[in-house]
């Protein structure tokens, strides 16, 4: 006995049809969740003002702290934005919609790509606002156009890396609430780096951790580029770290997607 299909099979999709469809979906999600969108911009701006106006004078009475801290705020902002990706992904997993996608002939990463790209766009927008506010409160970068471009590239790559990592965390977390929890742990990383204070001022045992964690070279690269200081090997390490994080997250995410989707 052989079985035959009555209806024609679904055609194979064009190269990036699924990805662009999911990106459009996630962009709509971002734009319609006005509160989250507002928070993703407001929070970093408030942090920025807090660090420059409240902590700034205590840390550096000469008033130059704003130049030091803006790159750190940019990364913190990226982290906040990215952590919301974990929640969106996790929410997808706990509603039935992921099962519908999984019973369609789609590449397993396509849904994640949608979330990640939307988050990237959202984050770059928030970053632009943060930089604008920074300029208003006295941030005076001395970078030329090429350095700006380089800094922008490093920021975008970092956002991509941390967003993809959070997307995978969203898959791994059992509920959207748990995803928020995991996100919080990662959001502490910038504090244990050279984002807000130089590593040399930390306790000795903490210095190696702060020195060799991925966020420090990213921060130093952005800071050096924006403030027109010697870049050293920071850009190289920043790129290496980010690419490594993306690679691990993509593989982990694809594996989780196949394994864990459909739990309810």
């Amino acid at each position: 006995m052989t079985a035959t299909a009555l209806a024609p099979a679904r055609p194979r999709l064009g190269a990036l049809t699924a990805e662009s469809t999911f990106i459009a979906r996630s962009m709509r999600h971002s734009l319609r969740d006005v509160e989250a969108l507002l928070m993703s911009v407001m929070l970093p701006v408030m942090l920025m003002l807090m660090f420059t106006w409240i902590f700034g004078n205590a840390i550096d009475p000469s008033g130059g702290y704003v130049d030091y801290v803006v790159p750190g705020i940019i990364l913190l902002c990226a982290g906040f934005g990215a952590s919301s990706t974990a929640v969106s992904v996790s929410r997808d997993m706990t509603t039935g919609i992921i099962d519908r996608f999984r019973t369609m002939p789609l590449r397993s990463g396509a849904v994640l790509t949608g979330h990640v790209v939307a988050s990237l766009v959202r984050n770059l927008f928030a970053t632009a606002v943060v930089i604008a506010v920074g300029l208003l409160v006295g941030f005076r970068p001395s970078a030329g156009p090429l350095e700006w471009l380089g800094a922008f590239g490093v920021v975008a790559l970092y956002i991509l890396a941390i967003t993809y990592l959070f997307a995978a965390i969203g898959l791994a977390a059992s509920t959207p609430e748990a995803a928020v929890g995991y996100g919080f742990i990662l959001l502490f990383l910038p504090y244990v780096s050279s984002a807000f204070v130089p590593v040399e001022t930390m306790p000795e045992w903490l210095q190696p951790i702060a020195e060799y964690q991925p966020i420090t070279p990213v921060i130093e690269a952005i800071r050096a580029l924006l403030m027109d200081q010697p870049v050293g090997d920071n850009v190289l390490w920043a790129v290496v770290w980010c690419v490594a994080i993306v690679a691990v997250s993509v593989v982990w995410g694809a594996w989780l997607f196949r394994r864990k989707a459909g739990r309810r």
Partner: protein
Amino acid sequence: MTLAIDARGLRKRFGRTEVLAGLDLAVPSGTVFALLGPNGAGKTTTINILTTLIRPDAGSARVAGYDVVEQGDDVKRRISLTGQAAAVDEVLTATENVVMMGRLSGLSRREAHSRAAALLERFELTDAAGRRVGTYSGGMRRRLDLALSLVVPVSVLFLDEPTTGLDTRSRKELWSVIRSLADDGTTVFLTTQYLEEADRLADRIAVLDRGRVAAEGTAGELKARIGGDVVELRDADGLLLVELPTDGTVHGLRAAIDELDRLPVASAPGGVVSIRRPSLDDVFLAITDRAAAPAPELIESK
């Protein structure tokens, strides 16, 4: 006869619980097949295996002619699933939901939009097409959910408890939609806890009990398995006192009434005797026959 679904010896274990214990299914193309069973009988697990969502521990299954494990993508190109949880995007509007599914199913933007308009019309959602699905009632969500499964024609449509949680009116509406799909030649595989649903919709019914098919056949065949008519005696308040199965012959009926006479309850004042055809409930209880089996009515009302 070609088979839309051909499953043999499916086994699946979650931890220490054996959910499927050697399940066999043969569903001819173009028919409506109901998998009937109480909660925890393994209905959803069966659907998940047949729709490639999970792998069986043992056994094999072919859907639309392709192996669900080895040729998952070929299976996926020919099926759609409406699961238990409404698989709709609540942030998007109904139109956006259908268009998204259309695009993901290979329709052009223009085709997807015209398909969305047609489908929403068919499911009486046109008036709410531009509203976010988050504001929809349960029945509307269910209808949209089914519409999303029909964006492109498929060979096999899987429906996991399609009417659970719906009011009677929405349920009847959904039934007529499912029936009309079957009339168009789509194979429909549905799971249900509602005996009436299986009776109304399905060409063939399999009763699932403890991970195995306990009985299979048309509703008529299943009813015939427990013999002919049932003679019942109710008291003045309509409370069932006695049920006696008979073989449907005059002789059998007389024997049943003689037996009633010998029972002390038969002399209760105002007692009423009637004859009825066995219901699927009778079949269900007879087949699954468990000491602690919950009554089907209780299952239904859950």
